[in-house]
């Protein structure tokens, strides 16, 4: 593909930008400043032009609005593609042969999963985007043990959340960490036999006789508040294994990072409550919690869930970090730095808002669903994200999540009631 060199050039420039924002890698990246916004704009316009010319569905979507790279001067004018389009079309500049990895959103039998395709280079950008922002919010110090409450990458190769957890595990705690989730029996029975041979499932070539498989249930999920793994419950927690890991960790001085979805935490806590178990993880231990419940476990209000994490596991509330991400993105937002106060406190009403912030290479807009225009601070609208790390798909994503604009960040409200229309998707005809 002739586009390779240009996408590669862009990726290199972006990684430089990320690196500069991250202070050369390990130090904490700063938030968006006036100085970086010019660079953000340049990168965004460059990427828009590349995606406009190399993602046909996106180009038609832009053209229907009369917007082209030639008449666009600001990143905020770039058309945002609805997240649902990832279910409808192959939104990728990668040819089928180039796609090495695919991330799916929840894939139940009744809903089509969204598909976000990657190759090695775009995965490298993904990881370059993930690590510094994760480190800044979850790991200000060093030497942690990770306990991850989801299945590992061999069992859930299409979950970008599991990929995220695996990437941070590999980077920050390669030797002393474990995944303690697994799949329901029926999921294992349907599992692709190739899975597990490699860290990531290779996408079968679509041009060949084997159609790409969309396996029910395994894939999932790292999206906003209402998203879950599978409505039919593909993931389960291996509670005995989890308990062994937790008790072992509690007997040691090294703090633990507990990572999981909200429902995996509920599963763990319900089990502990049922057994009347309680332990105190070493000081400095922390939890990273993401996603919602939809049809899984009990749905708990956030405050109650966090109260239980503190009560049963001895993780202080200041050390519980929420993450907002989705398989359609390559960057993540966090609501606090572990151990530090939450990002924003409204002085007027003395209310605490959990405010999520993306890294400087991803910008958020909260737009009025009524008018499509950015709302004022404190108002509710749909969350729109411009993620410079979404190199080979589409940078500008219109989510179905509602949020309240809070300064540079946003407070998560919930998901728009959007039941995807039934019928065949355009997938079969949409490959570039």
């Amino acid at each position: 593909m002739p586009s390779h060199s240009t996408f590669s050039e862009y990726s290199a420039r972006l990684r430089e930008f990320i690196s500069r924002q991250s202070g050369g890698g390990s130090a904490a990246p700063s938030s968006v400043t006036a100085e970086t916004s010019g660079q953000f704009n340049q990168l965004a316009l460059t990427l828009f032009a590349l995606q406009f010319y190399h993602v046909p569905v996106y180009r038609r979507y832009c053209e229907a609005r009369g917007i082209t790279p030639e008449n666009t001067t600001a990143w905020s004018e770039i058309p945002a593609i609805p997240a649902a389009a990832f279910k409808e079309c192959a939104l990728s500049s990668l040819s089928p042969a180039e796609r090495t990895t695919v991330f799916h959103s929840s894939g139940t039998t009744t809903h089509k999963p969204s598909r976000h395709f990657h190759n090695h280079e775009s995965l490298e950008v993904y990881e370059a985007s993930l690590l510094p922002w994760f480190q800044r919010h979850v790991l200000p110090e060093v030497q942690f043990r990770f306990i991850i409450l989801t299945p590992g990458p061999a069992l859930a190769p299409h979950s970008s959340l599991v990929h995220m957890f695996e990437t941070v595990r590999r980077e920050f705690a390669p030797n002393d960490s474990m995944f303690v989730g697994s799949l329901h029996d029926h999921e294992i029975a349907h599992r692709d036999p190739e899975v597990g041979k490699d860290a990531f499932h290779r996408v079968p070539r679509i041009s060949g006789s084997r159609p790409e498989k969309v396996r029910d249930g395994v894939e999932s999920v790292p999206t906003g508040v209402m998203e879950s793994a599978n409505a039919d419950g593909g993931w389960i927690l291996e509670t005995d294994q989890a308990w062994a890991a937790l008790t072992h960790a509690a007997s040691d001085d090294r703090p633990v990072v507990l990572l999981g979805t909200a429902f995996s935490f509920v599963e763990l806590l319900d089990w502990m409550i049922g057994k009347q178990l309680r332990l105190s993880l070493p000081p400095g231990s922390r939890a990273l919690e993401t996603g919602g419940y939809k049809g899984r476990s009990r749905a708990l209000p956030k405050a109650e869930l966090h109260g239980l994490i503190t009560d049963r596991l001895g993780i202080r509330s200041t050390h519980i970090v929420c993450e907002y991400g989705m398989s359609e993105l390559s960057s993540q937002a966090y609501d606090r730095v572990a151990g530090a106060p939450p990002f924003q406190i409204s002085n007027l009403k003395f209310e605490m808002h959990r405010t999520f912030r993306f890294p400087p290479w991803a910008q958020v807009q909260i737009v009025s669903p009524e008018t499509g225009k950015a709302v004022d601070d404190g108002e509710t609208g749909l969350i729109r994200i411009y993620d410079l790390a979404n190199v080979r798909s589409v940078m500008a994503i219109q989510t179905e999540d509602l949020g309240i604009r809070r300064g540079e960040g946003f407070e998560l409200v919930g998901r728009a009631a959007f039941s995807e229309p039934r019928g065949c998707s355009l997938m079969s005809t949409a490959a570039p």
Partner: protein
Amino acid sequence: MNLPNYFLADLPPEADVTPELLTEACQNLKRNRDEYLARRSTESLLEVFHELGQSWLNPAFPFRQKALEFGPAATGFSRATLAAGIDRFFAELTGGKLHDLIAQDLGHEQRLDDLVANTLERKSSRLGLVRGPNLIAHICAGNIPSPALRSIVLGFLVRSAQVVKCASGATLLPRLFAHSIYEIEPKLGACLEIAEWPGGRAPLETALFREADCVTATGADETLAAIKSRLPIRVRFLGYGHRLSFGYVTQEVLSQIKLASVAAHAAADVAAWNQLGCLSPHVIYVECGGRASPEQFAEALAIELARRETIEPRGPVTVETAAAIATRRAFYEVRAAHGPETRCWFSKESTAWSVVYEADPRFQRSCLHRFVYVKSVANLKEALQAADDIRAKVSTVGLAAPESRALEIARELAGWGVTRVCPLGQMQNPSLSWRHDGRPSLADLVTWTDWEHEIYAS
């Protein structure tokens, strides 16, 4: 709003309805019913409701004025949408139409007054009398107000005391209607109670069900099943589940001259109660092969909805509803960019109305609030196949067809299971004699006494 405290729904929000309060109210209602309503003549009741209907149509009627003044904030409907809905409902409420309903459902206009026989009964020396329940409890869904008003009228016709339990925030129109009854005849108003509490408050509902001998309910199937499971066996239950409706436009009516008027009828159905009723269309099926294509019809419908927005605006919606509409619009914009099988027409800078044309005939549930699909079909058979998933759930089909085909189409729709076929443009305007979900509404409420009398030779 300065209404006197006649009904539970008039109490200030902080006053909690308790099971004891509700039980006492029910017992009072039943006493009042025995005293003031049970022996009322049909004729006198028809006079009262005829007068009420006429009053509500009068722009100077204080209760109507209150409905239009406070309605937009309380219900979310614009003043014009409310006025149109009120006009449609009360235009049906005449003595003549009530009379026809009784004759239709009960076989004799005096059936509620005395043992009487119609021609058929006379042949077999039989007479019959019906009586209604002592106390009907109506559990009303909150989407649109007219079904609750209709239930109240039917309940009075069968001389029942009634408790109308409204969904949260949906009491305004039933309340004003109840006050208007109270004003015209306090003794009748004393047989009616309007209350509001959030669904699922079991102690209240248990108290209500203990006093009632008939319960009607509208809502989701699960809601109905939950209510039904809690009723004592002696209580009659009439459940009306959520239904879906669609329009059907034949190719013959799509001449270039008629296109705009047919589209205007469809727009009227979409705009009525902002499409929130079970009788409102989710989809308009349009036959190919006419002078105007289904796509052209969709465009004409968009023009009509835009025009209607200027005279009968949809009104504001919650941010969640707007988000649902915006998200669905975005979904179809992706499809539209992808190929000519999908096209979209949306109101600018608002979510006030949306038309999505799809060549794919599969029935889609709309997100409502004036969001409608136009789908192209070769013929009725294709439309019905495409709607097979909702076959048992269809209420109304709004039909635009030439006389030469209308009967055959109505037959086919009836055979498929549709319970009401009406002209496009009249979907949210059922006649008072309408059989709700295919059931005779009035007849379902009553119990008969048959007298087979022997004729002695004198």
